[in-house]
């Protein structure tokens, strides 16, 4: 089976600093892959390269076998890639339902003219988007707060909304940027369960600090340090790798990533 997303020998430099150094990784259908590493290891940069926010200086990205060149973040949804943001990035003045409906943009069919003239076609389109959004919210058990504004909700619920907004686009690959940060233990367990369910429909690439979660749900793990891949393999393999231990020495409790 060929890889869904392949990252091959990607190098990214910011000025004199090398953020990613010949990094390669891949993910196939139905897989959950974790990316871990201490602060400043280049995890978020890797995500940004995949999303088109940063361009690799060398190396290539392949999506379903085709090279991704000069792709824009807005094209991701169309390709089948969705991403959650570290800071959630919910639209603070849009209701939860509207937030998720924005996420469903790629399913919209109505032309701008329908919007200008309020044609019935636009209304039907809206109904569909709303139905789709409500379904996803229900799946994530948060349909009851559809009318609320994100700022009024507990952090854990906001995280679910962000996840719903990503999932409503029906992605093939989901990029999760620290989904567990700020969650209670219970919420984290729920997240793990959720990821195991999701995995049936969507591959997940995960940047995360919480080792328990990573070890629990990931099929494979890639370990970054100073922009280089220092280890890769199953959770068990990575756990026992001395280089990983070394890299993490004294870092394990930190919660933030640069």
């Amino acid at each position: 089976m060929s890889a869904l997303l392949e990252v091959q020998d990607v190098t990214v430099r910011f000025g004199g600093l090398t953020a990613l150094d010949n990094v390669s990784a891949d993910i196939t259908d139905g897989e959950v892959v974790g990316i871990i590493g201490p602060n400043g290891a280049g995890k978020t940069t890797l995500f940004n390269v995949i999303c088109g926010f940063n361009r690799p200086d060398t190396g290539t990205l392949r999506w379903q076998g085709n090279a991704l060149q000069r792709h824009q973040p807005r094209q991701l949804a169309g390709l089948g890639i969705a991403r959650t943001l570290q800071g959630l990035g919910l639209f603070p003045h849009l209701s939860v339902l509207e937030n998720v409906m924005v996420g469903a943009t790629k399913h919209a069919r109505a032309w701008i003219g329908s919007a200008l003239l309020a044609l019935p076609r636009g209304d039907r389109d809206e109904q569909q988007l709303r139905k789709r959004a409500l379904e996803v919210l229900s799946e994530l058990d948060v349909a009851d707060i559809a009318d609320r504004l994100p700022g009024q909700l507990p952090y854990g619920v906001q995280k679910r909304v962000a996840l719903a907004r990503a999932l409503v686009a029906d992605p093939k690959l989901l990029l999760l940027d620290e989904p567990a940060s700020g969650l209670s233990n219970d919420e984290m367990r729920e997240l793990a369960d959720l990821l195991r369910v999701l995995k049936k429909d969507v591959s997940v690439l995960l940047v995360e600090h919480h080792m328990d979660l990573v070890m629990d749900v990931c099929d494979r793990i890639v370990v970054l340090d100073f922009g280089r891949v220092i280890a890769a393999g199953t959770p068990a393999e990575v756990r026992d790798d001395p280089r990983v231990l070394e890299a993490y020495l004294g870092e394990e409790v930190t919660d933030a990533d640069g």
Partner: protein
Amino acid sequence: MFRFLNLTLNGLTNGMIYAAVALALVMIWRATRIVNFAQGGMLMFTTFIAWDLAQVHHANYWVALVVAVVAGILIGGVAERVLVRPVENGPPLNAVIVTLGLLIFLQALAGMIWGNSQAHSYPPAFRFIGYKVGDRTLRFSPNDLFIVLSVLVVVIALYVLFQRTSLGLQMRATAFNPEVAGLLGVRVGRLLTLGWALAAGLGALVGVLVAGTSSGYVTPVGPFDALLIYGFTAAVIGGLDSPGGAVVGGVVLGLILSYADSYISNFIQTMYALVVLIAVLMIRPKGIFSRTSERRV
């Protein structure tokens, strides 16, 4: 060649004036993150005060100038305390509207006191007849030299204030991060007021300088509003955060307007400002001298 020299000198003089207005706007922007649209109105009002002293009450030129600057400092300080402070942390547009309200208020007040119907002339500080070069007379006079030098002196004085004194350090710290500055014991509120006051004082100086040129008249609504726009353009060209950029932006704008006025058309001066501004911003969306930071994801 003589023409080019004249245009350059003319552009330099105007450019220094734009630079001073730009500097005033940048000081206020750095202090409070507000573009002061009342700047033109404030300097119009202080120039009227000076005009009243100099032309109606026959006061000495320098006395009138000092009174105008002091009045500017007071108006600036009071405006910050009373009007701007309540909207400083609000939505940015509210501050815009408040400064516009102040502008309109000052125009109306000046009209009530001094009338809208007359354009008043203002005495230049020195001879306004140009220097002689051989048998030709330059379009650059002792009074123009005075304008260039006085703006230069003020710019240097402000540089020293900002870079070499502890007060300046505190002001820079406040501009950089008011919360941290506050935690470090800086009395942020006072410094913001001071920033406005200094900027308005600088504006007042500019008003008097401009009024005394051979293209300036004192009226409630008129050339002082154009000054705001040129000053703003200069500040934006330089990057709103950079005092040095404001000065360079002002001079560059002055020169471009002077050349374009003569070589293209005298009728569309503000269009040149627009074209320059758009051209700069399309290449550098935050001005030439700003340090653009990468947007974080």
